């Protein structure tokens, strides 16, 4: 799956879970400070992303996903590994 497909999918999840405008969900944005996704909603985002992209994102890896771009790269790598 291409980075832009993953980004679009993630933006849709962020809109659904946290009400983030898809236009704001760009690779450079941090989840917490820029997009105001709190730690509880972040768990929802991760679970939805696992389901949507068919990947596993262990809890211990979630902390390293600071920006939308971090998550896109992680999902792409995890998808290839799977």
């Amino acid at each position, binding site marked *: 799956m291409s980075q832009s497909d993953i980004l679009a999918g993630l933006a849709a999840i962020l809109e659904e*879970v*946290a009400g983030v405008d898809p236009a704001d969900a760009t690779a450079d944005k941090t989840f917490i400070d820029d997009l105001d996704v709190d730690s*509880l*909603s972040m768990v929802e985002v991760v*679970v939805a992303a696992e389901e949507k992209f068919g990947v596993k994102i262990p809890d211990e890896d979630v902390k390293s996903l600071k920006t939308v771009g971090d998550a896109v790269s992680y999902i792409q790598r995890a998808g290839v590994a799977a």
Partner: protein
Amino acid sequence: MTETPRQVVVTGLGATTPVGGDVASTWEGLLAGRSGVRRLTEDWVEQLPVHIGAPLAVEPPLGRVEARTLDRVQQLALVAAREAWADAGTPDVDPERLAAVIGSGIGGVLTLLGQYDVLRERGPRRVSPHVVPMLMPNGPAATVGLAFTARAGVHAPVSACASGAEAISHALDMLRAGRADIAIAGGSEAAIHALPLAGFAQMQALSRRNDAPATASRPFDKGRDGFVLGEGAGVLVLETAEHARARGARVYATLAGSGISADAYHVAAPEPGGAGAARAVRAALRSAGLVPTDVVHINAHATSTPAGDVAEARALRAALGAALDTVTVTSTKSMTGHLLGAAGAVEAVFCVLALRERTVPATRNLDALDDEIDLDVVSIDNRAIPTGAVLSNSFGFGGHDVCLAFTP
């Protein structure tokens, strides 16, 4: 002229009920005798012996994300609190002098039951990370405290169907004690679900007039056969008179006093003689500096159960004596159904409006007053009342008795 220090006044009202989506439409509905009771349409209804309830007249107007992270009981509290806060003129107050006290009888039971289904059907990874803050009984208080930045204290009295009234009483104590200048106080409930309905039905507490929803809630009537489960929220903005005066706030009424007692008789049945409830009424009068002849109107707890309504009538006679003869009593539950932990709060709103407009909405469905009810219950037509003190009773499973006293 001297004034009692820290007199507490009501400066804002908010409500969402089975009769209306806000205070104005609810009050107009009560005066028009409109029932909020209807046949429930959920697919689980048919398996239950009770097919009726009193759902909200207007769904909470919240955004999708708010709706996702707040249980319905929190959503209703937020809707009522926003209305009350705006009604109070969005007061400018130091957050450290603002309190939130919102009670609930059952808390986020819809989330608890819904998420248990998710756990069993889809596993723990699918359980919402919001589930604990959504199901905790202090959830509605926490939601309101966060929304309005209340840092003087956030409290959630839990006393079944007395919770909303107890919240208002607790807020009064805080304001009188000088622990806050303003308190957002009330109650919320959203428990229309198969499990609570089945449980109340097993207690023989619910009306089974499934074929005539609008006439099912009939407090004080000979033919009453139980209460109707409703949902909703009521919130008052309470404020020290000093603070209200300083900001030029519009004052609806004075919350003159409150009384709390406990039956310690049975977990669910009322003490037949109403001794515990009578003690709450006497305590409220004492707290307010009132005597029985000051009372002009009582919004009774009267849920339409055979035992409860009689016990309350006896309690009122014990507490007020002959002065009760000239008191206009009503039960607005004849139209709203029983909102459990929100009941005392929405009925406090109704008391404030009755006091202000000098009008008491008639109790509906009162075709024949029970011989054991020795009260002047206003029925058929709404009634004008003289100015004076107004009481609101709320009692709850667990033997909780609360009485609030309002004066002009």
